[in-house]
């Protein structure tokens, strides 16, 4: 797989460390009433067969956090954006 890093250009997959699905949202409080949300954030995954947006750290390159769009069934890579832009866009949608 080749990942199009927005800062470094197209780079091979071994330069990246994957954190996993970017869909779970971290709860903003540790209030006991949010334990269900914490459980979902820490443990449960959609684990899609097909399109996924996932956090990837360009650990062997510019060391910035990205969100890579990819297909888990074909390994086709659609694109990568800085994680900050992804989160802001997600916040704007919500």
């Amino acid at each position: 797989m080749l990942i199009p890093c927005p800062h470094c250009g197209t780079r091979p997959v071994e330069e990246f460390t994957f954190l996993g699905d970017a869909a779970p949202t971290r709860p903003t409080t540790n209030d006991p009433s949010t334990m269900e949300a914490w459980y979902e954030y820490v443990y449960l995954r959609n684990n899609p067969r097909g399109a996924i947006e996932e956090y990837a750290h360009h650990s062997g390159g510019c060391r910035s956090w990205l969100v890579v769009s990819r297909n888990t069934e074909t390994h086709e890579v659609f694109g990568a954006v800085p994680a900050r832009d992804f989160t802001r866009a997600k916040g704007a949608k919500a």
Partner: protein
Amino acid sequence: MRYNVFSLIKNSFSGHKNWEPAWRDPVPQKEYDIIIVGGGGHGLATAYYLAKEHGLKNIAVLEKGWLGSGNIGRNTTIIRSNYMLPGNNPFYEWSMKLWENLEQDFNFNAMVSQRGVLNLCHTDAQRDAFARRGNAMRIDGVDAELLDREAVREMYPFFDYENARFPIKGGLLQKRGGTVRHDGVAWGYARGADSRGVDIIQHCEVKGIKVENGKVVGVDTNRGLIKCKKLGLATAGNSSETAKMVGMRLPMESHVLQAFVSEGLKPYIDGVVTFGAGHFYVSQSDKGGLVFGGDIDGYNSYARRGNLPMVEHVIEAGVAMIPSLSRVRVLRSWGGIMDMSMDGSPIIDKTHIEGLYLNAGWCYGGFKATPASGWCFAYTIAKDEPHKLNAAYRLDRFKTGHMLDEKGQGATPNLH
């Protein structure tokens, strides 16, 4: 027909043209008492033990591909029971005991070979951890021997003991561990289940699960609706996808793990050896090929093939352990999809839906567990409650904090 020397002699007179097929190819009935989704090792073993141990009839195994086309035919064939935690070790030791009698039990040559599994250690801290694990194994009645460097050298003189970065300090040996012919396991369980009346239906993909009033009533397949009273899911890397059919989200991710085989060599490595400084495990098949593997690729995948960086990484670890491997050529590599749970341990449990049972989360240690997994899953389905051997493999343990985390690493889907 039982396989034995007399049936072999009898069939040799007719040129081996009259052997019966090892299992039937039945047309699915409209209704079964129990349906198992997934015709891999765990699914077939479950059906076998449901019929044999619990005397149940009217069972079907639905497989979307051909029998044993998933991870049962893609692994590195290692069996061992060298775990540490109380919830894990008795289960894996039960699996080992089932392996030891498996061939006599299902009357099929699965080539169970207890050639010993040796884990190498490379630091003093790692040796301490091995001593602790060995003691935990012995408490549970499992054989374990802590070897020093010279004892390891006597077994395998060609390893790199003076490696500047990862010198070999010793190892933890389980002599009863070893390898099994993995396809033979699928075939043996399939034949054993079929002869007890289980319908094994290949090329039958489950598209949906029918639930009425909180109770399972059947499955939609590409061969029509099939009704059932109880449904067991044993779909390994596809577990999240099957669980989605009833709106469940599972604490796991699917990742690709690669395995490799080299060209055939003369007898070279007579046991199973694992490198403790990287992740590399190797044994030699009866055909002479070295069978080896390493870590998962590290990204979510359903692709059944990996990428080249992990190929390179695995082979680097292998050459660090055995320098002479550098001259061996790799013949083939392949990938399988692992159901990586968040604590590295599996799930064999009931679900919140009546009649629906889950067997998943095997990470990349599912092969050695095949007999006990089937045995415990069959018990759980037949009795509608877990056996004490799989009582710790609860689905809700992630919520209640009763994780089975052998490495003590916390929630991450890259453990095993």
